[in-house]
């Protein structure tokens, strides 16, 4: 049975760029590169590496453009998949990739003194909490919460089922909740201030 056609809002640009239209290619870069940058930065935590990965994903897009079949997949989903795999490859090469079964069980850090953390300390806590997640959990959290992809799309990106995505998310959220429990009040305050600003 053939898959139903997938609507892709970038299909027009893809088709034009595939025919060599430079303006369409530039518009495509502007549309997708911020998303690729965000995902790669969140997964790698390194600006230089995130820049390399974003560029590499775009170069791979140019290579598949002439044979791209509109309606088979959304180009953004494909790009997220390429970006995530490139990030995982880099983490593996650097020996930084943490698999699910290698990650220690998250521990409740217990209550901290009732003092408001400074913004930089708060940022460090969030960075540490996210960085401590196994890489596939972090990817699932980033793609779902930051990029607002549906579980089905996250499954396509990571090459797993929707159930497996939900399992990764549940474990990731649990680990984040535990790791950030002492900073909960500061985090909520930061969120309220962020919205008020």
């Amino acid at each position, binding site marked *: 049975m053939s898959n139903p056609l997938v609507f892709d809002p970038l299909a027009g640009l893809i088709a034009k*760029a595939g025919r*060599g239209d*430079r303006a369409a*290619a*530039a518009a495509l*870069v*502007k549309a997708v*590169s*911020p998303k690729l*940058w*965000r995902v790669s*930065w*969140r997964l790698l935590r390194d*600006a230089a590496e995130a*820049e390399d990965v*974003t*560029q590499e994903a*775009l*170069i791979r897009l*140019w*290579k598949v453009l*002439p044979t791209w079949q509109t309606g088979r997949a959304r180009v953004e989903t494909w790009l997220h998949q390429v970006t995530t795999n490139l990030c995982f490859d880099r983490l593996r090469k650097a020996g930084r990739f943490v698999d699910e079964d290698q990650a220690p069980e998250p521990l409740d850090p217990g209550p901290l003194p009732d003092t408001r953390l400074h913004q930089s300390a*708060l*940022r460090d*806590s*969030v*960075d540490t909490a*996210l960085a401590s997640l196994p890489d596939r959990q972090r990817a699932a959290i980033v793609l*779902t*919460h*930051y990029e*607002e992809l*549906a*579980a*089905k799309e996250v499954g396509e990106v990571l090459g797993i089922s*929707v159930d497996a995505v*939900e399992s990764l*998310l549940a474990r990731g*959220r649990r680990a*984040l909740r535990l790791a950030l429990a002492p900073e909960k009040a500061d*985090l*909520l305050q*930061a*969120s309220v*201030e*962020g*919205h008020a600003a």
Partner: protein
Amino acid sequence: MSIMDHHPLNKALADVLNHASPVPEMPAARIEAAAMAAFDAQRASRHAWVKTFGALAASLVLGVGGFVYYQSWQTEQKALSADADAFAEQLLSSELDSEL
């Protein structure tokens, strides 16, 4: 799509994390310049390949066409010569020559 995709807590968690730990600004100019340079390079190499292939195809068509034309011309010449020889033979063997 699962219920979880629309759960308001997801957005709240993203908001909280994003405000506490924003992503640094993307080096847009560098990324865009590198991507467009790669696009131009690929387009140029494809253009060069199309030109080379076009020239090869044109040479092949001209070569084969020329050969076929030459062969047919040669056959035609042979046929004409044979006709002329036959006519001459016919003339010689006829009484026409002596009558003239």
